[in-house]
């Protein structure tokens, strides 16, 4: 990796090479790789890279203008001529090297490990090559490349993890994915069999790897019971005070209004006694236009007073439980009372109506309870009379609730999809509500007949009677989106209903047990996806440590498996075993050569370091070779190439690693 960047503060341009590019955020942003796939494409960066290598090796300091040493350069199999031309130009003209040897890295490695005849499987960073070697000479014209290497594997791993944990709090870096892949992935010896059973609890317990990402723990301050009690007490106290105050204010207001009402009523009564002119003047004095206006305000006042009384009934529930209050002043006519006691009388009148309203509410509640009890009794009777029939009705009810729940979730999902019918209907409703003109002519004509309209008389022509029908208001419910409390409440209610029915079934149906309940079915123990994302133990949503955990299970074998089944990752190429079979059985014509090659399959490159890679290759190559052949195991199996130290003789024999 090479990164060139300019530090604005220091007024300097820095060039950073190697792992150091990740040290500084500035350089990290500019980091580039001179390679495109497995060939060098950017020779400017290559030059910087070589500068770095030669300086670190300490060559060229003897003077004499140039590096002064011969260079061994590795290159890709069948590298295009352009690249070799550019590379030799760079080495000879820029660095003045006396001589250069080009060769294929994996063949150096094979030679170093005393390989003579065999098949070299080299899994590199960006590509995997299979090269047959005969008597120390690589048969490059028979070699095959698979465009998959360690880099693609790490990327695959990263994408799998990102998709597995969409809302993961930490950002997973590609180097982290690479490290995870190197540490935890292994090649399954029988992928089909192993993957099918991977998420079974007993196997998963052993194979699941939990990766903990850093997290900051927020400590919740635990309040003692005493403190909680005190807080509750305080809250209750202040609530009570507020209620008292509000009741007092309400009462005062009520009394004032009653007085006003009484005055207006006397005013109305004067209509009969007074002459018309006097009455009219009287009205004008009190800001009334005519009798109708007076009547209207009386009516309205009456209404508000009645409403206020009703409210007080709710607030003073406790008082109702005490003994019925007496209202002695009510029976005494007004004439016999003083002004003060008149006031008292009005108050008592008010209290009396309150008391009566409370009694009515209580009676209604009692009736409701009675009705419930009757229903239950009826239900029990039905159950005893005909158990199977009762059970079938209960089961039907359960199924109905389940479909209701399902419908709700589906509707919610459809609303999240912009193109679905449900969301289109919603958009239509919104558009209708927002537009000034009535939605359609049809509705305008038909909507006039709704009775009991509370709309004012003024705009009778424009009024479309919206709101007269209670269902009209549900349009607002239909257009609200997302998880508002209303919907949650409804969900809760449905869940409660389901629970009640299931409890009944558990009690009375011998064939219905715990495992059949919805609760048991949605339990995490039975969930495949839970095993996949959260392993064998219960997942606690509130635990921050668990929120920052990654469980690696199927990925452990899924990622390296791509070398054997590239189709899994969308690569339309044959896997390494199929390529090996093709080379050995189709392309190598000579029976004897084939026999010798089969004895040595040599693995090299970073990606074959997956545990079990050699095992798998041995097993599968044995499957494709003709009966009677003997596969050599052991000695030739090296899982790490050491091409950096490969000797020069090899290349002297072959001049160029690639066929040219």
């Amino acid at each position, binding site marked *: 990796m090479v990164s060139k960047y300019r530090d604005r503060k220091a007024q300097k341009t820095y060039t950073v090479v190697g792992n150091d590019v990740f040290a500084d955020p500035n350089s990290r942003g500019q980091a580039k790789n001179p390679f495109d796939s497995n060939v060098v494409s950017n020779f400017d960066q290559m030059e910087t890279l070589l500068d770095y290598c030669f300086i670190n090796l300490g060559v060229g300091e003897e003077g004499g*203008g140039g590096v002064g040493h011969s260079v061994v350069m590795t290159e890709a199999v069948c590298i295009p*001529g352009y690249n070799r031309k550019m590379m030799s130009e760079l080495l000879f003209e820029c*660095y003045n090297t006396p001589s250069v040897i080009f060769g294929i890295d994996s063949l150096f490695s094979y030679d170093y490990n005393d390989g003579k005849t065999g098949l070299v499987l080299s899994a590199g960073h960006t590509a995997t090559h299979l090269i047959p070697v005969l008597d120390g000479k690589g048969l490059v014209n028979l070699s095959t490349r698979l465009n998959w290497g360690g880099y693609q594997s790490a990327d695959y791993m990263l994408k799998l993890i990102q*998709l597995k944990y969409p809302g993961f709090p930490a950002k997973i870096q590609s180097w982290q994915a690479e490290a995870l892949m190197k540490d935890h992935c292994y090649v399954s010896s029988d992928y089909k069999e192993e993957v099918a059973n991977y998420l079974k609890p007993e196997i998963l317990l052993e194979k699941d790897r939990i990766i903990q990402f850093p997290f900051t723990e927020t400590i919740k301050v635990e309040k003692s019971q005493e403190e909680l009690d005190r807080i509750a007490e305080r809250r209750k106290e202040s609530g009570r005070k507020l209620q008292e105050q509000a009741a007092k204010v309400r009462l005062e207001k009520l009394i004032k209004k009653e007085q006003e009402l009484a005055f207006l009523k006397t005013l109305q009564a004067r209509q009969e006694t007074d002459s018309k002119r006097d009455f009219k003047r009287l009205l004008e004095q009190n800001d009334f236009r005519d009798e109708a206006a007076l009547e209207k305000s009386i009516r309205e006042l009456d209404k508000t007073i009645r409403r206020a009384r009703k409210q007080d009934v709710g607030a003073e529930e406790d008082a109702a439980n005490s003994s019925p209050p007496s209202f002695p002043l009510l029976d005494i006519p007004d004439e016999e009372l003083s002004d003060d006691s008149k006031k008292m009388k009005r108050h008592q009148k008010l209290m009396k109506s309150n008391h009566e309203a409370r009694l009515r509410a209580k009676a209604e509640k009692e009736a409701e309870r009675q009705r419930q009890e009757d229903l239950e009794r009826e239900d029990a009777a039905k159950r005893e009379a005909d158990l199977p029939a009762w059970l079938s009705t209960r089961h039907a009810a359960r199924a109905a609730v389940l479909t209701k729940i399902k419908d709700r979730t589906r509707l919610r999902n459809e609303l999240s999809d912009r193109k679905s019918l449900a969301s289109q209907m919603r958009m239509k409703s919104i558009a209708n509500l927002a537009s000034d003109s009535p939605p359609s002519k049809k509705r305008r004509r038909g909507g006039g007949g709704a009775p009991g309209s509370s709309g004012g008389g003024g705009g009778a022509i424009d009024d479309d009677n919206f709101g007269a029908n209670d269902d009209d208001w549900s349009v607002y419910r239909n257009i609200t989106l997302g998880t508002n409390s209303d919907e949650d409440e409804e969900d809760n209610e449905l869940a409660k209903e389901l629970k009640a029915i299931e409890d009944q079934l558990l009690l009375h149906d011998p064939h219905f047990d715990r495992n059949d309940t919805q609760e048991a079915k949605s339990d995490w123990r039975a969930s*495949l996806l839970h095993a996949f994302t959260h392993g064998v133990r219960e997942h606690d949503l509130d635990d921050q440590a668990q929120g920052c955990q990654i469980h690696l299970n199927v990925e452990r074998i899924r990622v390296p498996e791509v070398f054997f089944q*590239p189709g899994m990752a*969308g690569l339309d190429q*044959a896997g390494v075993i199929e390529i090996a079979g093709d080379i050995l059985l189709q392309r190598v014509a000579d029976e004897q050569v084939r026999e010798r090659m089969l004895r040595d399959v040599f693995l090299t490159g970073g990606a074959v370091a997956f545990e079990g890679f050699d095992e798998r290759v041995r097993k599968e190559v044995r499957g494709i070779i003709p009966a009677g052949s003997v596969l050599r195991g052991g000695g030739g199996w090296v899982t790490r190439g050491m091409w950096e130290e490969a000797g020069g003789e090899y290349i002297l024999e072959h001049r160029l690693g690639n066929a*040219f």
Partner: protein
Amino acid sequence: MILVAQTIPWNPGPNWKPPHRRTKTLKQILSDATRTAAAGEGGTVPATGPMQTTYANIESAPSLHPAHSKKWCDITGLPAKYTDPKTKLRYADKEVYAAIRMLPPGSAERYLELRGANVVLK
């Protein structure tokens, strides 16, 4: 390691001048190579072997093995029996199917991309 140009101990060779354009993508390099090869067959450069192997033609061919067309669940990686007709995702069981239904928008495409089965409109 930070390199400043002046500390390089060797002098570039006297003839060394960086070529004008030194960066070519692999795609450009390959298309240039095929062009020159096609021109070469016209007469000047003889073919070097019975079968000319190039960077492009050593690529492995598509798999012919029937076992490799096996289907795996896009979400879990388990063997998949079913395909969701809407998203075209493969899935292992009904629980995964329910999860597919709940996927946030765009997620299904990313799963498909992982398998190289996504449709890219250009």
